[in-house]
């Protein structure tokens, strides 16, 4: 069975190590904060200028001056710091943020990512996505393996305008965990009950399938 959004988020959270600074994009990536294992600590970076983002506030804690990059009201954890946007992107571009998790429309075998613009549709802007993919040490893309018409999002070459080039190495989809290496997608794990044939059928770019592909633990 394909993973739910929550299960993808659960699998993403397994990538984090104790002491990691992590930036989570809007959508599935944000959900990963709910599944950080209890025995490790990670600190969430929000690119508008907050390191140590906490949960959404209670009604009593609501503060118009405390928001995250998705413009939602949030709190700060003990040990958080708040800074200006240039400082925030110095952390990001300078490679100080350990992990970035973000969604995408397409990823290709060269590690290129398209996530911000569909020509001839309304273009809203890239926000911080281009800086994030240019800077983080490890980037995880989360997305469904295929779009709602069944078309693969893992391509030989991206067709949409890019967000970044040669920057993606790891993808977690509803069907699989893949690594990008030497111009191919390497299948590392598959969702419980999902066949290798289904993953092959829904991966348009070159796919390398090792002898042993374990099921994800979610």
């Amino acid at each position, binding site marked *: 069975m394909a993973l739910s959004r929550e299960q993808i988020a659960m699998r993403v959270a397994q990538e984090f190590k104790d002491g990691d600074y992590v930036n989570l994009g809007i959508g599935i990536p944000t959900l990963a904060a709910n599944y950080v294992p209890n025995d490790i600590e990670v600190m969430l970076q929000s690119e*508008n200028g907050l390191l140590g983002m906490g949960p*959404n506030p209670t009604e009593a804690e609501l503060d118009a001056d405390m928001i995250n990059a998705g413009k939602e009201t949030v709190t700060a954890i003990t040990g958080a710091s708040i800074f*200006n946007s240039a400082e925030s992107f110095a952390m990001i571009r300078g490679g100080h943020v350990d992990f970035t998790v973000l969604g995408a429309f397409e990823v290709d075998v060269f590690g290129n990512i398209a996530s911000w613009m569909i020509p001839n549709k309304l273009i809203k802007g890239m*926000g911080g996505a281009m*800086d994030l993919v*240019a800077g983080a040490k490890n980037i995880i893309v989360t997305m469904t393996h295929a779009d709602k018409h069944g078309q693969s999002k893992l391509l030989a070459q991206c067709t949409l305008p890019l967000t970044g080039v040669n920057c993606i190495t790891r993808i977690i989809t509803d069907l699989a965990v893949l690594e990008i290496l030497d111009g191919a997608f390497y299948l590392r794990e598959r969702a419980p009950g999902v066949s290798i044939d289904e993953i092959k059928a829904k991966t348009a770019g070159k796919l390398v399938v090792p002898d042993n592909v374990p099921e994800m633990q979610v």
Partner: protein
Amino acid sequence: MAGFDKVVSSYAEAMAGLTDNMTVIAGGFGLCGIPEGLINQIKLMQTRGLTVVSNNCGVDDFGLGVLLVDKQIKKMISSYVGENALFEQQLLQGELEVELTPQGTLAEKMRAGGAGIPAFYTATGYGTPVGEGKESRQFNGRDYILEEAINGDFAIIKAYKADRYGNCIYRHTAQNFNPMAATAGKMTVVEVEHIVEPGEIPPSQIHTPGIYVDRVIQGSFEKRIERKVTAAATTRA
């Protein structure tokens, strides 16, 4: 006004000198930390043909969005403009120009502008539409594009507190772009929640030193929340 005292008593005085076709840099992220009263004053003045540099363009009826109503903005330089139906309409009708700029690049362009650095190289945007037509260069085997600094005729800033000399501190994430924007204006105007006497803010806690600030005005703020999300409404584990 005497010496370093930068406090003005009216919005008209605060924005005096703003004329058509100027470039205005505005602090704020979403509706957080925006100079509400200064924006409303620009609307009142009906200044036109403006180039506005700000991460976002407010919402339809609040923040920079109010300047769209009478088509006062000619060009917007932003990283994300998706919150605004009027913006979309004017963009599609060709009445408004937009230069989409990655968020970190936008912050750095303001910082560079204020710091006397005309341009800088960044990996952000290389190989994407943002890098098209820009000079590129390799450093240590990696590709970078050259991005130019931004300066404004005016910078409009929201701070939490300023003293009469223009030394400012910001509150929480309302800091965002404000400190960089403050350095990049020929005329920098700060709207604050509290004006205090010099010395009340400890010198080492000042975010924006008064040297960058030309005018300070006591504001009154609505501080609207764009996306109110409370703990009860989420499904946190």
